């Protein structure tokens, strides 16, 4: 461990704001990059299923 206490870990030698701001932004961006295509995929599959069902009823 590079830190003695948890408070020291949070403080990052006075650079806590910079370090945690960076990692906060990073985690948020990565989460969005995964979440958005998952939601879009669900929506795509749902609307395609509906279209296929409509077409099979017609024919």
């Amino acid at each position, binding site marked *: *461990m*590079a*830190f003695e206490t948890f408070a020291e*870990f949070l403080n*990052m*030698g*006075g*650079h806590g704001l*910079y*370090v945690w*701001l*960076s*990692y906060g*932004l*990073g985690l948020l*961006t*990565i989460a*969005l*990059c*995964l979440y958005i*295509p*998952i939601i*879009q*995929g669900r929506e*795509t*599959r749902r609307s*395609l*299923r509906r*279209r*296929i*069902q409509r077409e*099979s009823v017609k024919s």
Partner: protein
Amino acid sequence: MASSWLPRWFYQLASPRWCYSITGKLIPWFAAVGGLLFVIGLVWGLAFAPSDYQQGNSFRIIYLHVPTAILAQSFYMLMAIAGAIGLIWKMKVADMVAKSVAPLGAALAVLALATGAIWGKPTWGSWWVLDARLTSMLVLLFLYLGVMALNSAIESETTAAKSTAVLALVGLVNIPIIKYSVEWWNTLHQPATFKLTEKPAMPAEMWVPLLVMVIALYLVFGLAMMLRLRNEILTRERRAGWVKELLGS
């Protein structure tokens, strides 16, 4: 395609159906290994790696900054190469790859610039300096945004793919400029951490977790790319028999 000097997998890759099924098999592995390495790299870099003797703990931003900057450039090259393959062989899947990569590359470029700015404040005393490395990274972001704008502005999928491929290929000239900017011009930015020919200038306790984070982010963003690609394949192939079969049952 008459010529057969290319390996078989190249032609298999050209099949949207084959791509959809192979990415479906790869996704769980990328998620498991990428997620695990990401947690290891994050904890290692933030809590266990030693602090820098000059920069103290603000140097820990490197574990996010360097991987995102490397990936932003790799994804750009992937986008340009996929675009070129789409132009030359009229391969639809290659066009879809190029389109899927662009927003992720833009997000990575934003992240590299943002973490760089946040790191610059305590280290250089300024959020932003107009030097070669930072400017060429900003140009990279604008190239990604240009590709995304073209994709959404042009209705015809094939025309959009052609024009974005040309833009991506022209913009490829920016990649060596980013790489060598720290050598060609006087800059505040420090030189590259990883070089192919030399050992890193920092001790192993510092660069091993960095390498773990680079691999982790390749896997995580590879995963995000495959998720986007699959959505793109389903949407464009919606009239194909296999899609109806897959979703109809």
